[in-house]
């Protein structure tokens, strides 16, 4: 009854590594040194390998034969593709969150908005990325549209799209988040949808601009 199952252990390792990626303790392209992580977490290699296999399927890391595991570096095309998906999912989630949210859920979202505000200067430590991630995930959760929430959580979409840092200034991002929050608080579905759409569209455009600059180099 008290035995520790291998699945539980690898699930724990999986969550720890994911957290390290989210908080910049592991950055994109960085090698995951297996011995180091195993001793850090106090586990053996086999749950670590299982966790790495899962992270690979979720596209967060890449396993290169004979070289090891690396935090995955997305190509520009992949980033654009990712944002094209978010652009078509999240406005829908924001709309439904505005229509369905309870007062309790609104309070929770407010807390996360405050967290975004407090993390404004924590761009280098990943604090802002994490706050941004939590804010967006919460809205999908509040939408109570299970297919939306499942899709974004299983696919790690939010996590992946922040891997290279945020695509707009912290000030602009916060302003957008406040507008989205206000619309959800006021149960204005169409407004929430529109603000979310513009918020993500700006990221897509910034991404494409960045791509054009790179192409000219």
């Amino acid at each position: 009854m008290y035995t520790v199952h291998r699945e539980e252990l690898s699930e724990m390792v999986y969550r720890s590594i994911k957290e390290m990626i989210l908080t910049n303790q592991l950055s994109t392209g960085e090698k995951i040194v297996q011995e180091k992580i195993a001793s850090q977490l106090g586990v053996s290699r086999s749950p670590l390998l299982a966790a790495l296999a899962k992270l690979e399927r979720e596209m967060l890391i890449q396993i290169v034969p004979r070289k090891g595991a690396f935090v995955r570096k997305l190509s520009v095309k992949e980033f654009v593709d990712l944002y094209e998906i978010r652009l078509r999912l999240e406005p829908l989630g924001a709309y439904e969150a505005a229509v369905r949210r309870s007062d309790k859920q609104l309070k929770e979202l407010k807390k996360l908005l405050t967290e975004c505000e407090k993390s404004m200067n924590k761009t280098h430590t990943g604090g802002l990325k994490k706050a941004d991630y939590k804010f967006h995930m919460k809205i999908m959760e509040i939408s109570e549209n299970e297919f939306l929430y499942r899709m974004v959580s299983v696919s790690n979409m939010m996590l992946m799209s922040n891997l290279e840092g945020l695509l707009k200034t912290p000030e602009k991002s916060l302003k957008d988040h406040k507008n989205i929050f206000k619309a959800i608080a006021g149960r204005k579905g169409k407004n929430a949808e529109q603000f979310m759409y513009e918020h993500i569209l700006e990221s897509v455009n910034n991404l494409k601009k960045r791509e054009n600059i790179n192409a000219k180099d």
Partner: protein
Amino acid sequence: MQKIKKDALGNLVYGKIKLMILNGALKPGQKINKKELTEQLSVSQTPVNEAIIRLTGEGLIEQQERKGFFIKIFTYQDLKEFFAIRAGMEGVALRLCVEEQPDNTLDKLTHFFDNFSLPLDENEYKKYLKADQEFHQKIIELSRNSIIINFNKNFDFIMKSYQKGLIRPPEETLPEHKAIVKAVRNRDSEKAQQLLIEHHLKSRKVIKDQHLKYNTNN
């Protein structure tokens, strides 16, 4: 050089066994006979063992202590999840197809159900099952979205969700498929997405109801 060949063989064996599971050549619940598999694929034990471990990690095979490896039988809970995710994933994929792809590409999506009309006889039913699977896979492919394509390849939610056959009869789903195709032809991307989401959520509801019934009967 040798090593590269070994990796390639490993991947090949893995792919073959996975296909056998997804297309039902290895039945859900069936015990895996390693010796038989190695003979059937004419390879050595090592790549077969590696593939089994990989597929166990992916949740297609499960290990029962002291009993061996078995083809995983998906629970109602699993299936409910598959359909929820498919609704989100395929909905976006279809919308991307309709918004971004030229007519000649969309053409590849709109003819799967042309030759079916109700009622279907046994032979047509089999063909319909196949057309159904191919149609949904095609939506993913034609989205040309690398994230969606990879996601589907890594998780196989589409093929996994056919483990218990068709969830709803063609009498219900054929008209839905035709309506989706019509929205695609009309380039109405939001409607196509909406219809596809509803299509999957209806199947999900059937699974949910069966789940409840099963629980109360026990």
